[in-house]
């Protein structure tokens, strides 16, 4: 059964979702929790069966789909993708379990289960077309979640979300078809398998164009600076569960795809574009931090802080060395946990007051002490305090990029400090001072259902902050092999020198883990 565990992981939620139509709507919540718990258990089993020492793909399976055009249903996970899959099943589980009273709950749970399928599919796919199928398919449930359960401008927000991403991914699709065409030119066969593409060495000018095509698709998804405008709308209008999954998992598809596609396929182009992208990333970090500071709506603050953190992930990815990429993968997980939790927390207060405007609150620490504590921990994690999960990722990302450019790293560090300012000031506005608004005086504190979602996230945020090794080591192993591949494939002297071979400096990554503690 371990041979097909990834297929089971992907299609079990779909089958369960289809059966969900039969279930009575009063019992659907329990059904949803049960299904997502089983799904999470399968994901944990995957982790248990996963060999953290090997760097290559594991649990590979392949079924010919359109062999005459080189499309095969190929799956596999390595250290980079496995933890995001586990995180996605976990977020779905706690998301369904803590779902508040909403209309049409049956449709919501079925949609979430279908979304779970697409999320596992994206991260497990090793064939570009299969990847694309799940990537595009993930838009549809999210469109429905935002459009059907969102705020007053939900339809505008959902369409903007869909069309922005759809356009970007079609450009990416053209890039994929070009890759397959080049592969066909080189070997005489069609193939969309990513592992086949890894072996293809392209001339630099082709790489630049293809990098650009893939970049548009990924950058819109991340979202990177000039393309980020859909995200605040989507977050602003989406229901809590939508924001949580969007921030925790869906945005990670873009950054994951950079590591899976852009870097190993186009190492020379990655070096060529390293500085422009780093500058964009730093603009993301600083500019969105400043925008976040100006927001009145607490959810918008967290939405912009998400963009800001994604900037650091991009920066780490384009450090093009083991520390940076491992750090960015780890930060993806960290940001998934922390941003997910923060959106949950905003949802908690929104359920009670039906407003997200910060000036409506103040002094909540008096009426909701438990809530304030968890919010405080998560906010500390979000600003990257040592001993929390984000610190490890941010530190490694910046350390990685420090080797490429000190000045840009310094700027990014400034951005993180600005991030601390707006988070702390929002925290102050919400929780400290006297209770000015009478409506806040008798707010009930967090209930059991909400605790069920938040306590595990808090534990993870601290546990992986103190002891990241069980997760960081498999990530590190897989990242090493990718960096080695990039180093071997690099053709220009610039790229050869920028991408260090990890074999020569195998000691450094381990020492940096020590420092991260």
């Amino acid at each position, binding site marked *: 059964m371990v041979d097909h565990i990834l297929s089971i992981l992907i299609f079990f939620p779909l089958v369960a979702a289809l059966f969900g139509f039969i279930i009575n709507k009063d019992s659907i919540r329990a059904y949803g929790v049960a299904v997502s718990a089983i799904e999470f258990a399968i994901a944990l089993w995957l982790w248990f069966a996963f060999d953290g020492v090997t760097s290559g793909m594991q649990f590979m399976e392949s079924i010919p*789909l359109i062999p005459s055009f080189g499309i095969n249903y190929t799956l596999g996970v390595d250290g980079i993708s496995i933890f995001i899959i586990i995180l996605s099943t976990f977020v779905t589980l706690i998301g369904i379990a803590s779902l508040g009273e909403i209309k049409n709950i049956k449709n919501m749970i079925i949609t979430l289960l279908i979304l779970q399928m697409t999320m596992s599919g994206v991260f497990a796919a090793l064939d570009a*077309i299969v990847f694309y199928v799940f990537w595009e398919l993930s838009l549809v449930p999210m469109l429905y979640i935002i459009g*059907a359960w969102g705020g007053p401008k939900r*339809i505008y927000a959902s*369409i903007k979300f869909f*069309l922005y991403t*759809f356009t970007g991914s079609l*450009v990416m699709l*053209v890039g994929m078809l070009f890759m397959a*065409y080049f592969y066909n030119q080189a070997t005489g066969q069609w193939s969309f398998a990513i592992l086949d593409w890894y072996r293809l060495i392209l001339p630099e000018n082709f790489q630049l164009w293809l990098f650009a095509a893939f970049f548009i698709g990924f950058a819109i998804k991340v979202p990177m600076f000039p393309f980020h405008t859909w995200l605040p709308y989507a977050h602003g209008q989406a229901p809590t569960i939508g924001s949580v999954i969007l921030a925790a998992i869906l945005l990670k598809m873009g950054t994951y795809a950079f590591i899976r596609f852009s870097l190993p396929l186009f190492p020379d182009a990655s070096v060529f574009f390293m500085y422009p992208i780093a500058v964009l990333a730093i603009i993301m970090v600083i500019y969105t931090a400043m925008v976040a500071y100006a927001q009145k709506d607490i959810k918008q603050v967290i939405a912009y802080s998400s963009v800001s953190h994604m900037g650091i992930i991009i920066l780490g990815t384009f450090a093009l060395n083991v520390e940076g990429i491992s750090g960015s993968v780890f930060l993806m997980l960290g940001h998934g946990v922390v941003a997910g939790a923060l959106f949950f927390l905003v949802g908690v207060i929104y359920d009670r007051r039906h407003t997200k405007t910060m000036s409506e609150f103040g002094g909540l620490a008096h009426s909701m002490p438990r809530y304030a504590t968890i919010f405080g921990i998560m906010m500390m994690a979000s600003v990257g305090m040592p001993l929390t999960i984000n610190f490890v990722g941010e530190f490694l990302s910046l350390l990685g990029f420090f080797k490429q450019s000190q000045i840009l790293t310094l700027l990014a560090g400034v951005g993180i400090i600005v991030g601390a300012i707006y988070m702390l000031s929002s925290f102050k506005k919400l929780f400290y001072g006297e209770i000015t608004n009478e409506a806040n005086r008798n707010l009930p504190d967090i209930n059991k259902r909400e605790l069920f979602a938040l306590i595990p996230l808090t534990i993870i945020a601290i546990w992986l902050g103190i002891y990241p090794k069980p997760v960081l080591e498999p990530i590190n192993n897989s990242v090493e092999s990718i960096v080695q591949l990039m180093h071997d494939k690099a053709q220009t002297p610039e790229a050869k020198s920028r991408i260090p071979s990890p074999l020569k400096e195998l000691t450094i990554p381990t020492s940096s883990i020590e420092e991260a503690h």
Partner: protein
Amino acid sequence: MEPVNVSLESLNLVTLSPMLIPIVGALLILVIDTLKGGLDKTMYVVLSMLFIILDLGALFNSSSVFSTAGTMMGVFDVMLIDGLAILSQFIIVGASLLFIPLALTSKRFHEFSYPEFFALFLFMISGFQFMVATDNLILIFVGLETASLALYTIIAMHNRDKSFEAAIKYFTMGALAAGFYSFGSMVFYALTGSVEINQIATVLAANDYADIGYVLVGTVFLLASLGFKVSLIPFHTWTPDVYEGASAAMAGYMSIVPKIAGFIVTMRLFEFLIHSHVVWLEYVLYAIVVLTMTAANMWALVQTDVKRMLAYSSISHAGFVMAAVMIGTTQSNSALFLYWILFSFTNLGSFSMLWISRQKSLPDHQDSDHSYNKFAGMINTAPVAAVIMSIFMLSLAGVPPFALFWGKLYMISSAISAGYTVLALIMALNSAIAGYYYLKLIVYMLMKEPVKGMSPTIYSSNATLSLKTVIGIATVGTIFAFIAINPLLEFITTFVYNSGY
């Protein structure tokens, strides 16, 4: 004068058999009607279906002969049964088989009470079959006119004010196209002394396109007339009005069958012209393809009626497919067939969904038969229908893994392989634009509140078991297309390759 001596063997009448079966069927229906009138439409529908199935059987026979013996000629070498002819007849006959049960509505419609409707339908099928199974310009013309005249009448039989308008409009435009067609053919006949396309190609190539001016004149006329048939911009103006006037079932039929017949003729005619490296022609076609894809998308964005939106969307899809003719490689020609087969299933489904929600009279808040607000909040009242309709829309938009995505994938790939990079990008971006108007219907169905006073039964008011079966087939075909792509692609590619395209 010598006696004409033709052996029956040399006629190779088997090439005619697929076309003759619907003609026999149509005549039989007329005979039955004269002998005993007042029979129910169900009888005629099933009878038509049986003849169409026989037709399919004859086609399978031709296709197995083709795969062993190659291209067949027959009847004084007028008939040409090659891979293109067989593939396109499969689409024509297969789509007809799925569309004719749409006559079995629960409400009574005027046209189905006449047996002539079914006779005309069968004549039309054979007309289209003649059109694709020859490279003789005169027989193409005969097939085209047989089919078109039957189609005009069928549209007019729908018996609404807009239907007459539609039929007259279609007829006038069609007559103009016929005139253009005969003029264009005349020019080529004058130049080469032949009406057979491969003869024309040989003669033109032999004198190295010396009379390029006349060739271009002929090409322009033929392009205009075929442009009318497959609704390329700027010859598309009839399309939305005719689709709106015709019943949804016929509109769906028109978006598939006449167009594939038109594309086959276009392919036969323009393939050699494009490969002759007359640069001017390539530029014109390129412009028409890009214009058709893009402008139709823009118009579709502003429509308030779903059927008109689908009309513009089908123009845009026609532009997409015309790109394949322009690219002119084996891969692109195979992509054309793959695309059109997948498009048939999706469009069959979406037009049938409109057809089952057809009302006899319009409530106040609706200004046309299928205005968008009719579908508002459909997820609450008819969830299954709303989900199915959304799947068809997603498929049309090219969202994987639904049917049309695979067609688009292969089509864009064929553009890339042939070096048309910019065209590939334009195709991709047009799919993104098209996403908006398909999404608009999904937004209405899934996210808006229902209009007050809207009865939830209207979405399937016209449905019967037969109609639901057709929709079921279309849904399965749309969702599970990915299983069938590989065998389909291999089949198509072999046939197209062996016909020399």
